[in-house]
Every structure is written in structure tokens, then in C-alpha cells.
């Protein structure tokens, strides 16, 4: 653990040093890569301004609404489709098709129809984030042992309790892993919308920094998106292992 930590720290420091060096010598030309310290101070200045926090707030809200909306659609729909043999088989090809098509292609169309505001970003994020959770939920329901459900039925366990006590626990590991993927996708899409369509958020600041040639700020904001990504990953990983502590796959601390 400590060795792991110190090795990691050494590389991070080396990496930042290398960055500083490349930046100082302007190795990539055009100041495309400013020194790390310049980046850090640009970021420091940005963070002091309200504008940054507004943008971060926009990104966070768009991400959260996209993910929440996708959960509201995908989980019930996944349970519904997974529970019926025919429903599942008839919708399979359509879902497989829709989930493989790249969601960003819809962006120009969405912008025309809904503008560049929050609503458009959230709708696109929902559309993109639905698929991992939907397919995972369906897989989760399909893999439940028929015998488990039959046993529950034979013992005359009420449908309500069967849902909460048998179905949901069995599917939950699948749902949570789908949610974790969707959370990341929702952030990706929010950033793309802000970057391409100029929807408010960190991505928009990023595009402005690029256009204004403020490369130090640009890199600072790239780091911010990375921090957001790390936060989301960590929070969802932790939440997942907490929620599923009862589950055999997690019992031994993975």
C-alpha cells in the first residue's frame, strides 16, 4: 500500500515536471502546451471567478439530470422488457441497433429542435445514457434463475414482495454496473454538447479558452473535466460496493 502510494507519487511528480519542462521549452510550438505552473495559476485565477462555478454548476446539473432521467427510463423499462420472453425477443434487435449508433450524431438535430440550452443537453444525455442501464437491467432479469421465481410463486409470496425481495436484489448488481457506465457517458455527452453546441458549462469555457488562445486556461479546464470524471468514478464505485456489500461478488472486498 505504502509502496504503491510512493511509487505513484514519484511518477506523478515526474510527470508534472516533464510537463513543466515541455511547456517552458514550448516543445509543441504555438504555446499549445503551456508549463504546468502556468496552467495551475490560470486555473487558480479561473476558480476565483463566479463564472467558473456557474459553468461547473451547469455541467453538474446537466450531468445529473441526464443520468437521473436515463435511470427513470431505463430501469423500469429494462425490468418490463426483461420479464417477458416475447417482449424481450421482439425488442432485442431494435435495442441492439439503437445502442450501437453513436449518440453524438444526434446533436445537430437536437440543437435545431431544442436549441442549445439545458433541455437539449439533458435530452441527449438521457438518450446516450439509457443504453448501458437498459441492456444491463434486461440481462440481469434474464439471468435470474427461473427456479428462484417459481419457488417464490409456489410459496405464495405476494407479487409486491417478490419484486422487492427477489427480483430487485437479483438484478441490482447488473443495474449498478450499468449506472456506473451511464454516469460516465452522461458526463461525456454534457461536455460534448458544451464544446460543440456552446451549451453553458465547463466545455463551453474550454472552447472559449481555445478560441481565445488562452492555452493555460484551456489546460486548466481539461484538468477540471478529469477531476469531475474521477469524482464520478470514485463516488459510483464506492456507492456500488456499499450497496452491494451483501452480494457474494463483493463480500470479499472485490
Amino acid at each position, binding site marked *: 500500500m505504502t*509502496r*504503491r502510494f510512493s*511509487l*505513484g*507519487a*514519484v*511518477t*506523478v511528480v515526474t*510527470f508534472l515536471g516533464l510537463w513543466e519542462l515541455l511547456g517552458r521549452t514550448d516543445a*509543441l*510550438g*504555438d504555446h*499549445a*502546451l503551456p508549463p504546468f505552473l502556468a496552467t495551475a495559476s490560470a486555473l487558480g485565477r479561473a476558480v476565483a471567478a463566479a463564472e467558473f462555478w456557474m459553468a461547473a454548476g451547469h455541467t453538474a446539473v446537466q450531468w445529473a439530470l441526464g443520468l437521473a432521467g436515463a435511470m427513470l427510463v431505463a430501469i423500469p423499462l429494462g425490468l418490463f422488457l426483461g420479464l417477458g420472453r416475447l417482449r424481450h*425477443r*421482439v*425488442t*432485442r*434487435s*431494435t435495442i441492439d*441497433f439503437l445502442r*450501437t*449508433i*453513436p*449518440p*453524438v*450524431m*444526434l*446533436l*445537430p*438535430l437536437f*440543437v*435545431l*429542435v431544442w436549441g442549445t440550452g439545458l433541455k437539449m443537453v439533458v435530452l441527449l444525455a438521457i438518450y446516450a445514457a439509457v443504453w448501458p442501464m437498459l441492456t444491463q437491467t434486461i440481462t440481469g432479469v434474464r439471468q435470474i434463475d427461473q427456479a428462484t421465481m417459481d419457488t417464490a410463486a409456489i410459496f405464495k409470496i405476494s407479487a409486491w414482495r417478490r419484486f422487492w425481495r427477489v427480483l430487485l436484489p437479483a438484478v441490482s448488481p447488473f443495474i449498478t454496473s450499468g449506472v456506473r457506465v451511464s454516469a460516465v457517458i452522461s*458526463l*461525456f455527452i454534457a*461536455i*460534448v454538447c458544451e*464544446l*460543440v453546441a456552446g451549451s453553458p458549462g465547463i*466545455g463551453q469555457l*474550454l*472552447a472559449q*479558452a*481555445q478560441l481565445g*488562445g488562452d*492555452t493555460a486556461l*484551456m*489546460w486548466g*479546464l*481539461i484538468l477540471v*473535466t*478529469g*477531476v*469531475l*470524471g*474521477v469524482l*464520478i*468514478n470514485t463516488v459510483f464505485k464506492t456507492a456500488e460496493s456499499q450497496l452491494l456489500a451483501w452480494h457474494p461478488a463483493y463480500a470479499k472486498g472485490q
Partner: protein
Amino acid sequence: MTRRLILVAELVALPFLLVTVWWFSSAGSSSVFFPPLQTILAALVDWFPEGVTRDVVPSVVNLLAGYAIAVTAGVSAGMVLGRVRALEDAFSPIIQFMRSIPPAALLPFFILAMGPTSTMRISVIAVGAVWPTLLSTIDGARGIEPALLDVTKIYKTSRLRRIFKVLLPAASPLILAGMKTSLAFAIILVVVSEMLASTAGIGYFIISSQQYFNLPDLWAGTIVMGLLGYLLSELFFFVERRLLAWKGEI
């Protein structure tokens, strides 16, 4: 025979129904945003022969070039990091951070450094799409059955054969899983990079149709893009099934 028919019917029924509903509900539509499907298809037919070489080919070429670099780099680095504990410990924090950056966020930098060129697109794909393959390969390499390594030691397996006949196949299920996500990243990146800075490619076609308010072309381009994404992922699935035939489950 009838089983086959039922299976095919199950597969095509809903798509057919959806397209039919789209066709009839949009017929005679006067909304600018939702032109009749007939008009969209007409635009598609107009676009068709030259459109493929003009819009699809450049996108696909850049996509495949960047993807090839990302996969090669991700698999080779991942195999090394997965087998050498100290290296993995050392690089893990940086990798975890880099893979958390939404890949599109790197675009402004690449556009600034390289301009709206093919090199820019290939580079951004190479850098942005490498992480899923890298991380998954590390997991795969770490989990290689030690008994197999003993076998290669006892039988004096040459280095190349050990890599290509033992280590890579052993890690291949996870490598391919990572490559699948990398492919999705690569597609997103090529489209977004074309939307942001380009004069060619399917992303450019879509965004310029949008700017000229040419809705039938916009719809047609979106459909082409969707089909392209679908085809690529089916192709991937086909190759994956071949490569993992020995597992006998997918």
C-alpha cells in the same frame, strides 16, 4: 424451418413497425424539423454515390488509423503494466486520471496544436480512445493463469510464441471488451472532431447540413452515421466471436 421464420420475424417485426409508423406519421408533414420520411430517403438517394467517397471514406480512414494506434498502444502498454506490478503501481494514478477526462475535452488542445487536419483527428483518437483498451488489458494481463506461465517455462517456449500464443490469447476476452469501448470512443471522437473543425467527413456533412438548415440532408446524414456506427460494431462483434470461439459461450 418454422423456428427460423419465427426468429427472423421477431428480429424484423419491431424495426419494420417503427419505420412504417415513421413513414405514415411523417407523410405530408409540414414541420421543418420533421420532414416526411420520403423526403429524407430522397435526400439519401441523392447523397448516395458521391457521398460515400466524400463523407464516409475520410471519416472511416481517420477512425481506423487512430483506432489502430490506440489499440496497439493500449494492448502493448497494458500487457507490460499488467505483468509488472511495480510499473502498474507507478503509473496507476496517472492512468486513472487520464481515463477520467472525457475524451472530447482533449479536442481543443489538438485542434490548437494541429489545426483541422487528419493528423489532428488521428492523434485525438489515438490519445482519447486508448484508455478503455489499456485498463482492460491490464486487468486481463494481471489475471493470466499462472499455470500457463509454468507450462511455457517448462517447455522453453520462445518469447514471441509466449506473447502471441499464450499471453495475448489468455488476456484476449478482456482486451476485446476494452477494445469495444475504445471503438465507441473513437467513433464519437471522429464525429465530434469533424463537427468542430473540418471540411470533410460525415460529421462535417451533418453539421453543415444543420448550418444550412437543410433538414432532409441532416436527417439523411444522421441515418448514415447511425448505420455506420451499427456496421462497425457488428463487424467488431463478428471478429470478436471468431477470436473467442474457443470460449464457446458467446
